[in-house]
């Protein structure tokens, strides 16, 4: 465990760790393999499609990452996305412009996230149970709001975000760059970020060091909700419709991306850089499987096995490292005597 400093004299900069490098390595390998095997892989259009399809997941995954850095988890993200997408869809149909819709979407998402956070911190319901409960409630709400019909024909305003180009590159590239840079900075160089890592490493120590653990946790869920709210607009822009199954597997995909990206489920280590690698890994895999004409049913099998392999590899490494530390400690002790 790395030392965590919360005072101003001690500096702690979370670095990109072993697990992240494994995932980045796997991503490069995967890209190389698909590039060699399929001639259609390295076309500009294909690469752009990969990015466009994965933007909304990537942004949700950032929020999931923050929450998971503190040992939490949120499985209500799917229906949260549904609710925001429906409200945004209604506003679109009523003729509101993006200047009204974007803030509303982010606010509604944040409100749902904060509600989750408060249930977890104030009512002391464990993360997974709390969000399991809200997931069920929100799913019912999505159904009630849709009234059994699909919301269709909504493309128009927000497809600029996913389908558009800017300076010759797909717009999502810039969105992703902006979000990941901002949150990487937030988690690495600000007091809030250090508190997140401190709580994840040792909640009790963090609390004794004067960190308001409950506040940081609640805020983290709020941020996650806000990010889900924003990415609902990306989803809306990409799909152009909202159906009852909206976001059905969003929680599983986001958790998988974060874990593949090297964040420890116990909290305290990991980074958004790794999470981006995790999201891209899954997106490239999905794309490559289609290009190679492999039945897409295999895609989930590969993702599942890779989660197990990447966590398993980490175990083998960390066990070896712990052994080395123990030996070193014994030697130091021997020398001291």
């Amino acid at each position, binding site marked *: 465990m790395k030392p965590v400093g919360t005072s101003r004299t001690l500096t702690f900069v979370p670095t990109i760790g072993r697990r992240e490098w494994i995932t980045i390595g796997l991503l490069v390998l995967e890209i190389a393999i698909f590039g060699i095997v399929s001639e259609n892989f390295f076309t500009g259009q294909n690469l752009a499609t990969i990015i466009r399809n994965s933007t909304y997941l990537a942004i949700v995954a950032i929020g999931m990452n923050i929450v998971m850095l503190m040992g939490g*988890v949120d*499985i209500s993200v799917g229906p949260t996305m549904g609710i925001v997408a429906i409200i945004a869809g209604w506003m679109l149909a009523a003729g509101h412009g993006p200047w009204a819709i974007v803030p509303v979407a982010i606010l509604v998402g944040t409100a749902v996230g904060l509600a989750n956070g408060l*249930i977890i911190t104030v*009512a*002391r*319901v*464990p993360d*997974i*149970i*709390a969000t*399991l*409960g*809200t*997931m*069920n*409630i*929100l*799913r*019912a*709400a999505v*159904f*009630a709001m849709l009234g*059994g019909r699909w919301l269709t024909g909504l493309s128009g305003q927000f497809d600029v975000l996913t389908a558009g180009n800017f300076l010759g590159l797909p717009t999502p590239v810039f969105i992703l760059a902006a979000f990941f840079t901002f949150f990487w900075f937030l988690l690495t160089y600000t007091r809030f970020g250090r508190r997140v890592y401190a709580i994840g490493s040792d909640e009790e120590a963090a609390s004794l060091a004067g960190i308001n653990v409950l506040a940081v946790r609640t805020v983290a869920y709020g941020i996650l909700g806000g990010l889900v709210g924003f990415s609902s607009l990306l989803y809306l822009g990409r799909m152009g419709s909202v159906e009852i199954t909206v976001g059905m597997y969003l929680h*599983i995909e986001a*958790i*998988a991306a974060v*874990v593949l990206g090297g964040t420890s*489920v*116990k909290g305290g280590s990991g980074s958004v850089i790794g999470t981006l690698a995790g999201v891209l890994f899954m997106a490239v895999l999905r794309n490559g499987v289609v290009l190679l004409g492999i*039945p897409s*049913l*295999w*895609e*989930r*099998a*590969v*993702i*599942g*096995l890779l*989660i*197990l392999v990447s*966590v*398993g590899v980490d*175990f083998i490494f960390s066990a070896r490292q712990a052994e080395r530390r123990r030996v070193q400690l014994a030697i130091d002790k021997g020398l001291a005597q």
Partner: protein
Amino acid sequence: MRFSTRIFGNRTAFLLLFIFIVGVIMSLLSPFFLNVNNLLGMTRFGTMLALVALGQTLVITGGGGGIDLSVGSIISLASVIFGLVFQAGLPVPLAAVVAIGAGALMGAFNGFNIVVMRMPPLIATLGALYAFGAIALVATGGRPISGFPEWIGFLGYGTIAGMPAQVLLIVLPAFGMLWVVLNRTVFGRNIFLVGINETAGRFAGIDVRRTRFSLYVISGVLSAIAGLVSVAWLMAARPDVGRDIELQAITVAVLGGANIFGGEGSLGGTILAVLIVTMVATGLQLANINTVWQLGTIGVILLVSVATNQLIAARSSAARS
């Protein structure tokens, strides 16, 4: 305050009160609800959920962050294996044994990853959820397998002395056996101790890893049996039949009194919670209200019951100190 503590502090009383309230509301919604045939028939729908939730309760009680997200995929893969083996010419009883064995192996795979490879259960079983589910789809090309003999449908539709066959022949025996194991054997005591305090358990000479490993195997076996029930019920082995059941199972286990941090869990409570969920579902169906509301209702019940539990626990520990 004293009364509320007594009701909320006692899980069984709380759940029974709840069943009563739900029963009253549902019979007001639909005059057919209290019909004996309906009440008995209702238990049929809870069979798969009950089996999986019993396993989930044990896994959660065993502590160490224990949770099994892969149960749905084990149901699917086990029923597919049953179908494939049957198609290959094995008689039904033998095919069932093979499927249950496969469930045990899948549980052992989870147990190995968690106990030996020391993966967090959430992640290990998330990986398995993906992997097993995908193998079931790949093995069948996504199509259901059918062509089973008519008589296996007895397990899905038959009745013995008015009781649904699957409840009488599978759920009750499974519940009875597990109850005895959990409450009347050394192994059962060990599950609780390991869940409450792993270190204390180890000092007491309990093999913590073997205990937890067994729980995942049991969960795998119960899921496989649930898969067989689904085949009898649908007269087909569907590769996606178990999808989404894991969250329901966790909900039911926690509602029934399992503490997500381990050391507490009640098989009776879980069964009562399954009963509540099925009552709400069938009642709403009879009243022609969409079952999605069931999810919402269960969500509210879950949050309220866990939150009250936590607050009472916090207050009583504050009072003690």
